């Protein structure tokens, strides 16, 4: 019986090839998107899921209020772990993980050669608590021997492979590794090799060294560094909130002691919080450089997209099935007359849906690969399209059944309502309310609402990105190339002062307009400190000020305007400031002129203001322009800002010459340059990814909607063949018929626009809110989105409308 059904179903699907293809294609897109997003979401939620004690592990993080802004740091003061161990109970383990990096790592090979590894990161100082909290498999060596020797090191399998390629763990033991830090050099012996933790994990340390017990001075309690992390594993009975309170109390106590002791009036508020390990991967509010994080809102957004696109695909299926019922009426009538009951008819239709979805699931394999390729920027590393075939099959089967029910039940029920007698009487199956607003139209409107929300969002995001990248930054970034002296040479005595010799050499090159040393106006790294200005008899005004080290050509090179006073003078040591307009206002000076000659700075380190420049953007458009001060100190200048001649044809040649000069002073491989306007685009990488995602969703949603619309247009044209015939015989023109058939869709899209606009406006307004500098949402953006949707919809339906309109009415009116 089932076999019979299956054969009929396949025959039926084959007969309706066009619709089967459209349906399969639409559903396959929906399924592929769901799978890709499922992979991403499940990956992000799988962080450290393998740890047995994961519910009990918490991180200690530091909260601050700076300049009335709340900020979090992922680290905790170094001595805090000692304080906790001494004063607190209720904890299974207190686990400090103090990471650092080295500019160079050297390994002497027995054969004589030396291997170099530059800029090595993820080297952690730990004590025995670490291995108690996290279980590592020891491939060589023992924990005991590791902690016995303070200058030993344990490598993970991955790192061991990097340092000693082709060696077994046992062969590595007792080998020596030399670490060159920024100012220190340490020699260590390998005491063990451990297997890597199951991925993905936030414990990414690759080398472990014993943490030496130190007695810290009091001031260290007030320092926080993001690389000094602290984990706590709580007792079964401990209450996280209570533990957090106790940890915070220790810090507040120590801060108070320090305040009483020192005379520093630097104001800041700091507190400690506990972050459950399960939340750690999603803690985007905590600043951390090294660890990849996922934002929960983004994941929810992705799930939303998956859900909507899947719904769109289902809606398509429902729409086409409903529209197809009149064509199948005869078949259904015959089946009913011959004794088919409701359950059988529903079963038959559901089977048809199931087969279609299943075929869609199979064809989605190709689409999934395509999506992974399209989204390679966005999909985190470590996710592949398919790892477990069983998981994929289960996913497809489960989704197929879900879709079959979602998309198949309603049309199936409708089928059972077909009245057999009416079918044979040849009366029309279109019900009397066909002029009104039926389900099919509602669904089409729903599809277009989603498509329009995407179109509008894509438009607005694109516009804001364009605005962020191209609008006036307050300085001239044209033709500027940035070259940075690598960080590792900055602290290397061998390279001390070499940048200035290089500068002199570069200045002789033709094709360069001017060169300045200093931190670029807008750069990712920045430093800010609290400056104060005190007037006689007034309380001091304290403001957070961005400081930029620059030289004397800087202001001219970037085309900044002096609003008052003069440029900085050449100087080896700091002695004066040039500030921006915002700083003038922040310190309460009446005018740029008024600011000149006033002393500002950190306590005991105040210098006069000698000039004021116009405001310019120092950060991306999320942040408003802050108070800023330029200062000159030669030893802090490591960045070249090179302005090239306007003649672009010469640029490549000039760059090659710069590189040549570079080699005379620095190692060859360390040269890298970037055009400033390109590096500003880099700031908005996340937004560009969002734009890619929204653009792709737009295309997919439009595409699916059009599939549905096309199917509907074909069926409508079929249903209305008779009507079109009559109208033509009565004298309707081809244009008239096309207009008649298209008018309905125009109305539907217009209605969708009315519904979609406020939704899109709401979300985009929220998104734009985060930008300090943003575009206005204008009515014409919605109009353009509407017109685009309309044009696409009309293109989709017009071929069918025209085909119907030019058909010979004699054929359609031939008496039945």
């Amino acid at each position, binding site marked *: 019986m089932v076999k019979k059904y299956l054969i009929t179903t396949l025959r039926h699907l084959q007969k309706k090839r066009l619709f089967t293809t459209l349906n399969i294609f639409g559903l396959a897109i929906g399924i592929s998107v769901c799978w890709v997003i499922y992979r991403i979401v499940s990956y992000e939620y799988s962080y450290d899921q393998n740890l047995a004690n994961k519910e009990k592990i918490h991180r200690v993080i530091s909260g601050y209020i700076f300049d009335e802004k709340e900020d979090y740091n992922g680290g905790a003061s170094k001595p805090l772990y000692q304080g906790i161990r001494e004063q607190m109970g209720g904890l299974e383990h207190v686990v400090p993980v103090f990471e650092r990096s080295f500019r160079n790592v050297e390994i002497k090979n027995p054969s004589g050669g030396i291997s170099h590894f530059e800029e090595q990161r993820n080297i952690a100082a730990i004590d025995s608590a670490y291995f108690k909290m996290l279980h590592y498999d020891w491939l060589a060596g023992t924990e005991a021997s590791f902690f016995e020797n303070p200058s030993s090191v344990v490598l993970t399998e991955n790192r061991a492979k990097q340092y000693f390629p082709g060696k077994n763990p046992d062969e590595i033991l007792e080998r020596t590794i030399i670490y060159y830090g920024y100012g220190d050099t340490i020699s260590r012996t390998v005491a063990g090799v451990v297997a890597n933790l199951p991925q993905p994990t936030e414990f990414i340390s690759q080398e472990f060294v014993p943490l030496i017990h130190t007695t810290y001075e009091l001031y260290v309690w007030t320092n926080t560094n993001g690389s000094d992390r602290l984990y706590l594993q709580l007792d079964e009975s401990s209450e996280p909130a209570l533990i957090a309170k106790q940890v915070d109390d220790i810090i507040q106590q120590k801060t108070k002691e320090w305040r009483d002791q020192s005379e520093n009036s630097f104001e800041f508020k700091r507190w400690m919080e506990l972050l459950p390990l399960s939340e750690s991967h999603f803690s985007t509010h905590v600043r951390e450089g090294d660890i990849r994080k996922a934002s929960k809102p983004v994941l929810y957004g992705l799930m939303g997209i998956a859900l909507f696109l899947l719904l769109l695909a289902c809606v398509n299926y429902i729409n086409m099935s409903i529209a197809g019922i009149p064509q199948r009426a005869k078949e259904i009538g015959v089946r009913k007359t011959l004794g088919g009951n409701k359950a059988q008819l529903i079963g038959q239709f559901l089977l048809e849906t199931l087969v279609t979805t299943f075929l869609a699931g199979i064809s989605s394999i190709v689409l999934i690969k395509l999506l992974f390729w399209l989204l390679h920027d966005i999909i985190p590393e470590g996710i592949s399209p398919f790892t477990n075939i069983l998981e994929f099959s289960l996913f497809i089967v489960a989704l197929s059944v879900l879709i079959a029910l979602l998309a198949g039940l309603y049309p199936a029920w409708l089928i059972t309502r077909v009245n057999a007698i009416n079918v044979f009487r040849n*009366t*029309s199956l*279109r019900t*009397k309310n*066909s*002029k009104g607003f039926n389900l099919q139209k509602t669904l089409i409107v729903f599809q277009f609402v989603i498509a329009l929300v995407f179109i509008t969002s894509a438009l607005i995001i694109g516009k804001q990105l364009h605005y962020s990248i191209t609008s006036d930054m307050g300085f001239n970034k044209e033709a500027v190339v940035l070259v940075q002296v690598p960080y590792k040479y900055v602290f290397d005595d061998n390279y001390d002062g070499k940048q200035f010799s290089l500068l002199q050499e570069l200045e002789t090159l033709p094709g360069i307009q001017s060169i300045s040393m200093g931190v670029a106006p807008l750069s990712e790294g920045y430093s800010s400190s609290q400056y104060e200005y005190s007037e006689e008899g007034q309380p001091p005004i304290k403001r957070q000020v961005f400081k930029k080290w620059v030289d004397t050509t800087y202001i001219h090179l970037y085309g900044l305007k002096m609003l008052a006073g003069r440029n900085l003078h050449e100087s080896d040591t700091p002695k004066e400031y040039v500030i921006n307009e915002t700083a003038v206002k922040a310190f309460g000076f009446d005018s740029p002129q008024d600011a000149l000659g006033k002393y500002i700075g950190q306590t005991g380190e105040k210098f006069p203001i000698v000039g004021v420049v116009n405001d310019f953007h120092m950060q991306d458009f999320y942040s408003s322009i802050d108070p800023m001060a330029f200062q000159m100190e030669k030893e802090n200048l490591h960045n070249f800002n090179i302005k090239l001649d306007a003649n672009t044809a010469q640029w490549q040649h000039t760059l090659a010459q710069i590189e040549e000069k570079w080699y005379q002073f620095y190692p060859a491989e360390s040269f890298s340059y970037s055009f400033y306007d390109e590096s500003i685009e880099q700031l908005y990488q996340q937004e560009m990814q969002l734009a890619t995602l929204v653009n792709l969703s737009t295309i997919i949603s439009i595409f699916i909607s059009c599939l549905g619309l096309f199917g509907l247009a074909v069926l409508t044209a079929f249903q209305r063949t*008779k*009507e079109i*015939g*009559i*109208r033509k*015989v*009565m*004298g*309707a*023109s081809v244009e*008239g018929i096309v207009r008649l058939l298209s008018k309905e869709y125009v109305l539907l899209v217009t209605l969708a626009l009315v519904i979609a606009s406020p939704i899109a406006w709401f979300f985009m307004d929220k998104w734009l809110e985060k930008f300090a500098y943003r575009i206005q949402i204008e009515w014409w953006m919605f109009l353009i989105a509407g017109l685009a949707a309309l044009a696409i919809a009309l293109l989709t339906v017009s071929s069918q409308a025209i085909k119907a309109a030019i058909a*010979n*009415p*004699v054929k359609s*009116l*031939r*008496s*039945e």
Partner: protein
Amino acid sequence: MLLQLNNIFKWVNSGGQRIFLLKDINLEVEEGEFISIMGPSGSGKSTLLNVIGMLDSFDEGEYNFLDESVHTLKEKHRANLYKEYIGFVFQSYHLLDELTVQENLEMPLIYKKFKSSERKAMVADMLDRFNIVGKKDLFPAQLSGGQQQLVGVARALISKPKLILADEPTGNLNSKQGEEIMELFKQLNDEGVTIIQVTHSEKNAEYGSRIINLLDGRMI
């Protein structure tokens, strides 16, 4: 003379063979005639009617309608010609299901670009003449077959055509309803409208002034 067909041939090619639907048809129709076309199924009655109505093309021969040579006209002119002078009545009425009686009558007038006020007047006139004022707001499905065909005839007549083409107008009606429609045709013919009908029924054919018999696409 209203129209003239000279040596009209129409054929289809099927499997290398040429099958003639119409073979050497010669026909002259004067204004005011009432012609019945008869013949067995498949003899080409409807095809001939469609050719006369300019809904269908032919492969050979000449067709003159009111001194215009139809075979040389472009599609658009041809459409204008039949829009203006010809009205159609169908066996299965072909009223639009989702339009009321009144709207069905109005439809051809819209296509002929009559003004709204004129349309109203003409529709009212027709409703009155056919005694269906009371039914003007009903949908076709709410009418009996005879009434539907009455509306069909009214719709064909509303733009005052010179020629009415009726393809088995009584085919779906019972004898009494059929008789009423034929009486109506007779009356219209007396008023000067030229009518060409296709029919199977000897009795209905009697209403006409001339009978044309077709067999295998040929006039006999």
